[in-house]
């Protein structure tokens, strides 16, 4: 009896949990494949009767099927014609997001791995000072960086250039990267360090040959966090990008949401596309992310 009660309770709680976490996303996905008549029905059509991929086609096959003012007016059976001409900006914007994210990941590793090793395994004067320094840069709010960054970027002539995003994203990712790596390196035995040094390895060789291979889980976590942070970042991108040359995915998607002439199903399709890469990464690498979050304690 007791066990039955426990199982029922766990089942009910799990169902409630899944509804809370997944229902909004399910509604987003369902809306993205609905025809115009369904998406504008009251009460809503929860499950589309005739799902259509027209919206996704408009985004991915935009080059082949130019959407102009005229073709938009003629209408499209699925969306009633409310596909914006900016639909074709989404794929280039995702490329921009990808380039920025990969560059930020690489720079984070180049800068973060040696620093974390030094702070975790080497005894030197200024060690605790540099740890405090790293910790305090972790908590600078991005909104406080907006004005000075804008002025610098303006002066450097980097406005509307991907470089401005890569540089500024370092400020919000490097401290977290170093923090996670320091926690992880510290958990590895010091004896390895001594053995490698006795064998004649330099500090850099010790790091690259001994610690880096052992630190793979934390490196995976760091790569994922930096990638997701860059991919999702909005505020700084909003300030520094102006045209297709540098607009990232969040900027293009945000522009859709404030345009009342665009079909809701199209906006939701753009939302689905924005959501798929980070969610797939997070769910596939769940184990690494949870351990990284736990070690890093907080994401900042």
């Amino acid at each position, binding site marked *: 009896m007791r066990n039955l009660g426990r199982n029922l309770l766990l089942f009910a*709680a*799990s169902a409630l949990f899944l509804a809370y*976490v*997944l229902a*909004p*996303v399910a*509604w*987003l996905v369902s*809306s993205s494949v609905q025809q115009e008549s369904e*998406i*504008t*029905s009251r009460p809503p059509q929860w499950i589309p009767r005739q799902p259509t991929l027209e919206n996704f086609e408009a985004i991915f096959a935009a080059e082949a099927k130019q959407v102009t003012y005229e073709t938009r007016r003629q209408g499209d059976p699925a969306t009633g014609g409310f596909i914006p001409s900016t639909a074709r900006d989404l794929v280039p914007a995702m490329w921009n997001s990808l380039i920025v994210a990969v560059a930020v990941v690489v720079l984070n590793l*180049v*800068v*973060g791995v*040696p*620093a974390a090793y*030094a702070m975790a395994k*080497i*005894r030197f004067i200024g060690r605790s000072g*540099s*740890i*405090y320094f790293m*910790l*305090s840069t*972790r*908590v*600078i*709010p991005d*909104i*406080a*960086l*907006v*004005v*000075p960054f804008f002025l*610098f970027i303006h002066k450097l002539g980097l406005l509307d250039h991907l470089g401005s995003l890569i540089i500024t994203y*370092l*400020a919000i990712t490097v401290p977290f990267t170093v923090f996670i790596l320091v*926690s992880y390196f510290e958990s590895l035995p010091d004896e390895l360090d001594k053995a490698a040094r006795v064998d004649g390895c*330099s*500090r850099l060789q010790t790091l690259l040959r001994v610690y880096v291979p052992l630190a793979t889980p934390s490196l995976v976590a760091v790569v994922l966090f930096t990638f*997701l942070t860059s991919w999702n970042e*909005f*505020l700084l991108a909003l300030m520094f990008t102006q045209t297709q040359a540098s607009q990232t995915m*969040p900027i293009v*998607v*945000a522009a859709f*949401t404030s345009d009342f002439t665009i079909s*809701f199903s199209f906006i939701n399709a753009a*939302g689905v596309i924005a*959501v798929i890469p*980070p969610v797939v990464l*997070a*769910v596939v690498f*769940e184990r690494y992310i*949870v351990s990284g979050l736990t070690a*890093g*304690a*907080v994401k*900042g």
Partner: protein
Amino acid sequence: MSARIGALPGAFRAAPVSRYDQAAAMWLLAPMLVVLLAVAVFPVLYSFWVSLFDLKLTRPHRVPFVWFENYAIVFQDPLFWSSVWRTTWFTLMSVTAILVIALLIAILLNEEFPGRRFLSAMLLVPWAIPYVANGLMWKWIYDSGYGALNGLLLQLDFIDKYMFWLGDPDKTLALIANAFVWKEVPLAAILLLVGLKSIPADLYSAARVDGANLWRRFVHITLPGLRPAFMLVMIYETMMAIRHFDLFFILTEGGPAEASHVLAWQVYVETFRKLSFGTGSALAYIMALVTFLLAFWLIRMLGRKL
């Protein structure tokens, strides 16, 4: 929580610093120091410097030094104080809801049952979603014409006609907070779960032997044991809520009227709509100081064993 950053074993600590190690450490640290000085420390100091000038991009050639006048202007602005109030209210609502929901989820995931691993994987879905997509999704759910919230409540007979949810100044902040909470809950739940797992199981069995029931075990063992994790989540989420911008931009743009005009939005309006970088910087600096004080507390907790 077990972030014992900087805790070195005793023997290691006693060894003398070798000259080679000192030099190697400096070289290894140099890239990080250069990057952080350039992209974090210098901008923050420069921001303070800018806040002492009457810098308006609408008038780029005359930039008088005005001491602390920008701060005076900010403090005399009634909109600043009402934004402080709205930010506080948003933060209180969000952090309370995050703690309660995350605690319930952590308790669930702390149990052993088939499907638990699937649930913890699904927990990361809201965490991974970009804030912009999160805003888009909730804007559509709250939509006054065809949104899911109206549809659901109507089908359940809670309302008799479609409502203009985000247009109601009394509900706007709570609705934005709901979207914020949904996205922040996973991280909080993960941290609380670690806290739950760190409570020794013997405590529970001992209490059971002493005849403590489920509720008393929860109040006397679980809650005190969770204190550090609770504090961590509370401070961190408070910082996140105070500075939050994205959802306000996507969902309401500070509206209706000024119903969701919070501090982060005020910084945006001052700097990028009025192009008044002086007062914008002053505002951003005030926000940074507040979150810095909170963060200082957090750092002391994380770096306690230094």
